[in-house]
């Protein structure tokens, strides 16, 4: 029994790593069971997982330009590009 428990036990450090890994790749059967067990006993890692997913969603939205502000390229540079192309 002790052997089984050891096999199943994860530290929070490892569990939070698996939470990130799971968002990117498939976990092995063992990892899945370990993570599931750990979360059922650990409210901190459960909260971490929810927050991690939230951050993922934020990255996704943010990095795809949801909050972009339009600024203008300065005219001097525009003219420089146009001039360089004109010369060729």
């Amino acid at each position, binding site marked *: 029994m002790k052997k089984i428990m050891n096999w199943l036990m994860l*530290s*929070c*450090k*490892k569990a*939070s*790593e698996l939470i*990130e*890994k799971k*968002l*990117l*790749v498939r976990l092995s059967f063992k990892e899945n069971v370990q993570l599931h067990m750990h979360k059922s006993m650990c409210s*901190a*890692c459960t*909260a*971490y997982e*929810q*927050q*991690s997913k*939230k*951050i993922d*969603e*934020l*990255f*996704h*939205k*943010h*990095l*795809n*330009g*949801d*909050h*972009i*502000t*339009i*600024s*203008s*390229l*300065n005219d001097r*540079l*525009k003219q*420089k*590009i*146009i001039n*360089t*192309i*004109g010369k*060729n």
Partner: protein
Amino acid sequence: MGVEQFQKNPSITIKSWVEAYSDKMYSWALYKTNNKETSEDLVQQTFMIAYQSFDKFEDRSNPKTWLFGILNHKIADHFRKIYRNPVINESDRNPEAGKDFLDTFFDADGSWIKEQRPKPWPEDAHLFDNADFIKIMHSCMNKLPSNWFAVINLKYLEEKKGDLICQELEITPTNFWQILHRAKLQLRKCLEIHWFKK
């Protein structure tokens, strides 16, 4: 000048594209890289490439899509370079750089250090629409070590698959999700300090 001639003359066409799209391209590059000079360079390079490879542009495709395709390629190149040569003053950006990063979150047994233990964030369905929150998130992201920031950006730029990014950066998949793990721990902490605990 007839329309036909207009389309056949690359320098005239590209000049009209500079007028029409350069602001949008610049804004996008700036949004991604958070650096004015870099963004100006990237836009400039994009137009040069567009000019040089003008014969590959088919009249029927949308110039904006084509230009942004080139620009995104250049932005990805930029992040790959940063990943390989992160900025030198890394310790300024990451105050914990001296210690093992994970030791600032977990104790020797691998349990959360008391102050770092995640507690649920309050429910807020409109969080992502809150301009103040977005500002804080932006500044938290820009405080990440530059190579982590580069990896995150590559992941979400064009929704690249993890294994492709690993190939490009020549890192192992394990290394890849470990970087994301650290980056997210750091970002989470920053959001907690500047938003959730306020």
